[in-house]
């Protein structure tokens, strides 16, 4: 069994393969920001307490500061910047902007990723369900109301589009 001090990994970041040599303890967050140069994923606490580093790994939103970079080897990672063509993400982005859900914007990319994953699996969530779904992503500026407004508006338009 090989013990590696340096690990060569390739991660598909926003559809682009990024290969780098990483240390065993390097996090996926560090990899994405520093090696892939994808800086919309933020480092607010590096401890899993704030959610600003949220990205999609293997189809699920995760806190990338709590994932080893090596664990993402040969896997796909998506961030807000990579989801520019996704209709649900676009709807959320527009809704965040027009509802005033963005103040400093530091939590916004992680919040959008969490919201998109949630709405993709929940058809008609109420406000409480939205708050619960976003409860791993801190925001210090907005008091959350306009963020919930923005997500609820997209959920409502999704629902009416299905009717």
């Amino acid at each position, binding site marked *: *069994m090989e013990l590696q001090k340096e690990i060569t990994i390739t991660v598909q970041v926003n559809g682009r393969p990024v290969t780098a040599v990483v240390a065993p303890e390097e996090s996926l967050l560090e990899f994405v920001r520093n090696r892939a140069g994808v800086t919309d994923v933020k480092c607010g606490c590096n401890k899993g307490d704030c959610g600003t580093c949220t990205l999609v790994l293997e189809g699920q939103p995760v*806190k990338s*500061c*709590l*994932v*080893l970079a090596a664990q993402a080897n040969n896997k796909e990672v998506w961030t807000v910047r990579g989801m520019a063509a996704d209709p649900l993400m676009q709807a959320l982005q527009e809704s965040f902007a027009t509802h005033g859900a963005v103040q400093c914007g530091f939590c916004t990319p992680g919040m959008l990723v969490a919201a998109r994953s949630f709405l993709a699996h929940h058809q008609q969530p109420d406000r409480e369900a939205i708050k619960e779904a976003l409860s791993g992503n801190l925001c210090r500026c907005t008091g959350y109301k306009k963020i919930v407004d923005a997500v609820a508006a997209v959920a409502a338009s999704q629902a009416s589009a299905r009717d």
Partner: protein
Amino acid sequence: MSSFAYAVPKTKDEALALLNELGPGGRVVAGCTNILPDIRAKKITACTLVDISRLAELKGINVRGEKVTIGSLTTINELLHSEIVANHGQVLWQAGQRFADPLVRNRATIGGNLANASPAADGVVPLLALDARVMVASLAGEREIPVDAFFTGPGKSVLQPNELITGVSFAKTTTMKSAFIKFGLRKAMAISLASIGLVVGLKGDKVDQVRIALGALAPTPLRARQTESYLAGNTLTPAVVARAQEIVRTEVKPISDVRASQEYRLHLTGVLLKRAFEAALA
């Protein structure tokens, strides 16, 4: 050069061989929700990270007869999406909903929650209430340890460095009533100040079987055995519940820390016991 090393065993047996070789220098990692903060805080400064996260054989939730088996790599989110857990291990499903936050639930595993051995572990308290057994493997073979005998102190368990948690198993609680209550200082991303997992079966209006598990109230999660013995065969009158509250407070040994005082945690113990019965039997 890093003081850490990394290895990705391709099979469980390969992992066991590696752990055997590394001894205390090896650390099993999967969801990494605990170990990465510990590495950054320099609580762990050197080791080989044995990444078992790709071992499919440690995943999955199965029922055979009366027994439910959950692979150690099962995430909390997977528990929440399992009808088996929802129907036959209700208290675990209930606890999953209060576990950390929705993002961490996508990574944190049930095996990791056991191995971390936190007295406040929200994934462990329900396993205690389910009287679950921890399945552990090493090169020497497999053994099963009752969850109740698994922990020895904060962050400590009987798990040996050469051993790997492969899963947990418990008898179905389909016909029994369950409740999990967590009291934290906020509604998400909170460490339990006190938590309770309850599984109870009634015969008529009398308590037939009862298992009470408590979190964050002692150096390890614990079963309230004396309270259980007192309640077994009793009817849950207000007087009986009040007596049970007194007994349960003698069974716990909470600490005072920055989150809460010992006095308050003792107070909560009684409150949670009463509420768990109310919730389970509602």
